[in-house]
């Protein structure tokens, strides 16, 4: 992977405890502020944003032409740069021919993408970043580690040390003092710069306007003081009308930093007159460089074109579990974070994207938080697939993706396999042969599969028209069979006819590791079997959120939206969301025991977050009288089988991700932990030592009037 040793980078990053702590606190804070600011958006409004982005991309060619005409009419320079090199060339040429010496820049990831600074410095120009975070990163000789908070990986202490080392100025480790110093330090640079370089958040084709969003005010000075302004903007930033632009502009700061509106929005369509150093006014030259660099060919790529809808708000960074412990230098190439993986693919190629794609654990939180609903997990899995097809898949990924045959074997030989898998010799062999970390305690296999145990239980009730086809998924089928039995029992108690169609595992591990052909085969099989029942009026229910996540979101992506796939997706329900609907329509049997005085912690699995905004499990725990504390650090770090991978490929990162959750659970004084995902259960049990239960076990016990563990 192009000279990158990801394992070494990860092990280095995990040693940096203060950076992990900073990132963790900052990302949680940004996530919560963002969620609060976005609360007013309805599903309908969000769908509209998605449509605007889609329509903007569809009309790109017209918009480019319109923009060019407008800008030329206004006397501005317009250049369409096919490649990064072309764009740099153009800027260098403008600077050279106009006798430029000093260049001030406002924050722009697009200029990072084309590595413009490197080129300008090589040509002898003085280039100064003016966004505080970017300036610090430039001073440190680093790359930005976050889209909207480029220096978030540095602590205040590191920053004051950095300024002392590089500039010989001693400042207290206080953001206010540093800011005051930088204001004065950079003011002089602004006043004496010949050229200003910015990116652009949008370009509005109908009036040929550049829209620039900043908070510090550097964007205003960069575009108002120097005699030349060059804006470099990715072609995907073009929108057609002001109506479209304002709707996106309205959501951008909310989703980016939780601000209702960014402090400064500068809108310009030409260079204007500026008071010059030597008196009077000069007319500023304004050049707009529209950058392709892979974007237009990505537009033809049915999977990757989705990334072009990104408005670069960075909300996906805040929730990404691996980014939150590793930071953007490891979880990135030049672009970082979840959206950075497909963006690296588009602008820097497959190899570079694949160099850190294995850090994505497919929790899907990026997709869930994205205001445009961009499906990053699918693009990332596709990148893993394209890389795997070309260079071969990793052995451990293949084994983990094909786990089902191993699980079947272990289940068939259960008492023996359970004994063997518990031995340190077996753990050593699994680590060496497969790549499963020897510290992982594998679950105990049931001697009988769920289907065998349900023999004689799934009897049809002639009188009922409530019909459910139960999708168990592997864990409930081979291991946590009690969850499967409880699910069937609770549904039957509520008058359902329950059937269990032939089925295979959901295929999530194959999807996660980019073995998409395997995932597709599983998807085809499961859809075919489920559709049999859907077409007869059955709803599909699973107690495993990941299974429903696959049926609803992953299968349509893998198989395309045929009638069968679509109907199966629409009729698939996560168990507690389904029970909540019944409760709300007064159809749920409420004759169950209450457990007043019992204390529990609830952990919300990532895939459940996608399925229901209502947090149905919490409502049921409340009804059961259980005092449930909701601890919300986001993903637990397991990522299905990912957290089982040995050492710095999985286990160590997974453990670091789980840390705050584990600490909070240990401190909580709860009797047990509740979560509806079988893999979150494994993760929480292995690191807290506390009992973790599926909520259906509690409800089942409550119907039977039995005490709970």
């Amino acid at each position: 992977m192009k000279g990158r040793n990801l394992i070494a980078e990860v092990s280095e990053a995990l040693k940096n405890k203060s950076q992990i702590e900073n990132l963790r606190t900052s990302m949680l804070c940004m996530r919560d502020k963002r969620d609060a600011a976005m609360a007013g958006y309805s599903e309908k409004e969000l769908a509209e944003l998605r449509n605007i982005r889609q329509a903007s991309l569809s009309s790109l060619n017209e918009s480019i032409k319109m923009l060019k005409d407008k800008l030329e009419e206004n006397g501005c320079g317009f250049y369409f740069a096919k490649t990064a090199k072309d764009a740099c060339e153009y800027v260098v040429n403008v600077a050279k021919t106009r006798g430029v010496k000093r260049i001030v820049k406002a924050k722009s990831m697009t200029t990072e993408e084309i590595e413009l600074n490197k080129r300008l410095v090589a040509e002898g120009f003085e280039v100064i970043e003016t966004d505080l975070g970017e300036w610090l990163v430039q001073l440190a000789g680093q790359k930005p580690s976050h889209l909207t908070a480029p220096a978030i990986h540095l602590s205040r202490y590191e920053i004051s040390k950095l300024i002392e080392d590089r500039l010989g100025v001693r400042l207290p480790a206080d953001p206010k003092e540093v800011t005051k110093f930088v204001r004065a330090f950079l003011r002089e640079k602004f006043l004496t710069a010949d050229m200003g370089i910015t990116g652009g958040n949008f370009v509005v084709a109908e009036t040929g306007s550049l829209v620039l969003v900043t908070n510090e005010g550097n964007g205003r000075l960069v575009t108002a003081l120097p005699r030349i302004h060059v804006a470099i903007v990715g072609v995907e930033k073009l929108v057609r009308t002001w109506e479209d632009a304002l709707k996106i502009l309205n959501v951008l700061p909310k989703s980016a930093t939780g601000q209702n509106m960014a402090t400064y929005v500068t809108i310009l369509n030409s260079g204007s007159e500026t008071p010059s150093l030597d008196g009077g006014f000069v007319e500023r030259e304004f050049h707009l460089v529209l950058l392709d660099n892979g974007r237009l060919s990505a537009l033809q790529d049915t999977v990757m074109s989705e990334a072009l809808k990104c408005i670069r708000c960075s909300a996906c960074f805040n929730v990404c579990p691996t980014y939150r412990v590793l930071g953007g230098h490891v979880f990135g190439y030049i672009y970082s974070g979840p959206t950075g993986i497909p963006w690296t693919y588009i602008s820097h190629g497959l190899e570079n994207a694949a160099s850190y794609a294995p850090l994505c654990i497919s929790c899907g939180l990026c997709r869930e938080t994205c205001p445009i609903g961009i499906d990053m997990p699918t693009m990332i899995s596709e990148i893993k697939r394209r890389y795997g097809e070309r260079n071969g898949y990793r052995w451990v990924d293949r084994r983990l993706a094909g786990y089902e045959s191993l699980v079947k074997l272990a289940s068939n030989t259960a008492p023996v396999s359970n004994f063997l898998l518990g031995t340190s010799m077996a753990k050593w062999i699994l680590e060496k042969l497969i790549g499963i970390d020897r510290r992982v305690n594998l679950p105990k296999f049931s001697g009988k599969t769920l289907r065998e145990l349900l023999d004689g239980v799934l009897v049809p009730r002639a009188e009922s028209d409530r019909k459910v086809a139960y999708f168990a998924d592997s864990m409930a089928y081979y291991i946590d069979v009690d969850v499967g039995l409880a699910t069937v029992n609770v549904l039957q108690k509520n008058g359902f006819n329950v059937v269990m169609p032939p089925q295979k595992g959901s295929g999530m591990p194959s999807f996660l590791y980019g073995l998409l052909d395997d995932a597709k085969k599983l998807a085809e099989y499961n859809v075919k079997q489920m559709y049999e029942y859907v077409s007869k009026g059955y709803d599909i229910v699973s107690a495993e959120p990941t299974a429903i996540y696959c049926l609803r979101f992953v299968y349509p992506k893998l198989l395309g939206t045929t009638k069968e796939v679509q109907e199966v997706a629409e009729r698939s329900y996560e168990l507690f969301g389904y029970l909540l609907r019944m409760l709300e329509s007064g159809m749920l049997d409420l004759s169950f025991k209450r457990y007043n005085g019992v204390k529990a912690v609830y952990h919300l699995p990532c895939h459940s977050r996608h399925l229901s905004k209502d947090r149905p499990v919490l409502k049921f725990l409340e009804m059961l009288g259980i005092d449930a504390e909701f601890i919300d650090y986001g993903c637990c770090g397991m990522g299905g089988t990912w957290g089982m991978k040995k050492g710095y490929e999985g286990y160590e990162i997974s453990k670091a991700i789980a840390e705050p959750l584990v600490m909070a659970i240990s401190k909580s004084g709860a009797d047990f932990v509740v979560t509806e995902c079988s893999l979150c259960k494994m993760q929480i049990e292995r690191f807290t030592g506390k009992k973790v239960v599926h909520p259906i076990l509690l409800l089942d016990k409550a119907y039977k009037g039995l005490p709970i563990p």
Partner: protein
Amino acid sequence: MKADSDVLKRFISELEKLGATAELLETRTQVVKHLSDFVREKGAKMVLAYGLERMLSSELSKAITSMGISYFDINDVDRRDLRKLLERADIGITGADLAVAETGSLIITSENDAARLLSCLPPIHVAILPRENILDSFLDLAEWLRKMQGTSKRTVSVITGPSRTADIELEIVLGVHGPCELHVIILGGALSEG
């Protein structure tokens, strides 16, 4: 006029959340009195103004210079001195074209960058806004922007609170490269009861 006063209240409350201040004043005399007190309290040595109503600017000039503080209207100074004055001004006073209540934003257009720099360079920015120019929602600006950007080369600045950053450990600090303080004077009509 109830809706009107709701919009006004919303605007003021959003501004205050941002760390800006708002003052509702009825008459020119009140504005002159308020601003000259303000300039004195801030210890300013030089005040620069642009885009104010003619009479207001000349009365302000009288009141402020009588306290021994310099006051210039950009329209009245020698163009060759402009740059120096902009770099040195302690307070910039500008008009504002429009405002948006739901975000607490000011919309200021400028025919050249001397006018634009007046709300960028000095540490304190005062904007004067007619009450009737406050729009309800941000999306209401579309038609206006299409016309403004379609027919003129005026730069449009949307200003929402004082300059800020959270680049170091997410701690919010005001006054990075733009003004540390933003004060808005809203002209005409007090808040009605209820």
